[in-house]
């Protein structure tokens, strides 16, 4: 079960978005995030949402897959909404006992919620259309200018590849250990939160031991294959930007101009916020 979720991250189909340069995609996603946080009213979000919808359509990733990526965040979404709904002062919407929900709370909650949904959908699109290797290669390149500031761009990217490579293995391992303990009468399902949390403890020791052993073996295998960090290393695949990449970047820049315009024109959705 666990395997499917992780591997399901990358959705292998051929599309314009899939074949784009990972660096371009990372750049676009970054700009997108920045302007998403610049947007201060629903018109801005409408424009951004439209941009995201077009991107999803171009990527040929089915809608239900994209929507599924939001699901794990549902709890956080509802929590955020509730927090704003009940804690923002303003004209009362309903009153249930000591708790009051306000109009401005509703608007604010919806506003933050929409922002989050668009954010999750768009960033998931990045991982849905870019294989982990492409992603790290791209990241390494994008981070390269920062190496002068002492950012170990190669090591960061390598760490990310390895993390991506090992997450499914570790999850599988956790499942395996859990099952082995269940076979010996351990109970992970019943009892209150505290009890359940305590029952997880015996899981962690073997999991950490195993993670360290694996990491150790992998480090050894990498060293045996002459790995010595980024220096002197070449790449089989050279990244190349094509027309689609430039068009993509141009579009996201255009979108940011639109958002800035809408921001100035309509102003913040709630007075006194940014």
């Amino acid at each position, binding site marked *: 079960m666990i*395997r499917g979720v992780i591997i399901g991250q990358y959705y292998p189909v051929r599309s314009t978005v899939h074949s784009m340069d990972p660096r371009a995609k990372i750049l676009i996603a970054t700009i997108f995030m920045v302007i998403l946080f610049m947007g201060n009213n629903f018109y801005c979000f409408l424009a951004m949402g439209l941009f995201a919808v077009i991107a999803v359509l171009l990527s040929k990733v089915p809608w239900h897959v994209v929507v599924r990526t939001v699901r794990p965040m549902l709890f956080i979404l509802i929590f955020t909404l509730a927090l704003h709904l009940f804690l923002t002062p303003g004209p009362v919407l309903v009153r249930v006992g000591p708790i009051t929900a306000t109009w401005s709370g509703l608007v604010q909650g919806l506003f933050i919620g929409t922002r989050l949904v668009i954010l999750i959908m768009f960033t998931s699109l990045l991982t849905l259309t870019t*294989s982990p290797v492409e992603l790290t290669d791209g990241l390494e390149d994008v981070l390269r200018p920062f190496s002068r500031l002492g950012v170990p761009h190669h090591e960061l990217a390598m760490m990310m590849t390895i993390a991506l490579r090992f997450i499914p293995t570790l999850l599988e391992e956790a499942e395996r250990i859990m099952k082995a303990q269940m076979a010996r009468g351990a109970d992970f399902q019943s009892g209150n939160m505290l009890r359940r949390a305590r029952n997880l403890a015996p899981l962690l020791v073997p999991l950490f031991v195993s993670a360290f052993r694996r990491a150790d073996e992998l480090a050894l295998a990498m060293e045996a294959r*002459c790995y010595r960090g980024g220096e002197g*290393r070449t790449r089989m695949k050279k990244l190349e930007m094509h027309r689609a990449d430039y068009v993509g970047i141009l579009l996201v820049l255009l979108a940011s101009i639109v958002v800035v315009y809408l921001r100035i024109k309509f102003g913040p959705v709630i007075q006194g916020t940014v």
Partner: protein
Amino acid sequence: MNEENRAVVAETLVHTYGPDESSGVTALAGVDLEIKQGEFVCIIGPNGSGKSTLARHFNALLLPTSGRVLVFGMDTKDERNLWEIRRTAGMVFQNPDNQMVATVVEEDVAFGPENLGIKPEEIRQRVSDALKAVGMEDFSRASPHFLSGGQKQRVAIAGILAMMPSVIVLDEPTAMLDPRGRREVMETLSRLNKEKGITVVHITHHMDEAVHADRVIVMYEGKAVLSGSPAEVFSQTEDLSKWGLDVPFVERLGDMLRKSGYEVSRSALTVEEMVDELCRLRSST
């Protein structure tokens, strides 16, 4: 013998794990051995006898506590030789899952050559040659996660081949595989040895894999206690069982028959050889 003919040499090699020699674990207690270029050598020995430790000296993943190791004449202790030694003597480990670096087969095979700083076009060529050599060319874009154990080990071997080594050291590469996986790996190794002249050092607990080697080395308590052709080694039935090792069943059958007075040659170690030998015996009576 001149230096070039000797792929790997260990001279009174001692290795101690831990802070110092008095309190640590002595995993190797003075190993002397020599592996010739083009040889197919199997190393057998009980758990904890020092096989893995020895293997890690062959490509300078570990350095001698005392004594020395030479790989094609290069001393592993000399820092300047480090990368050339690791390129020359490639290493494949037991667990295929813990040695895959990338999430796509061809990227994984490319990892070694990339570290060597080879030009992209040539890496491409090497990757496709290496995958062909192990019969995995159809899986170049696959995710290692979806391969069988035997296929993963062949990818790992390809990853080493792409660095164009002269020696491949394999630490129990078949331990986690099913019969087909084992067969695939063994066939791949013997092909590389015969066709490309690559020296193979194969560590295994399966005695029936050892009978196909040119030479078998037995490790016991940190020493190379026996070395010789499979026929020589497996005829030492008593010693082997003292060391906790097995004798291939063909050899045991031969023993039983010899005890009953049949003149079965000691050189028959594989099923095929034994069948030939028995047929010879029948026609001679």
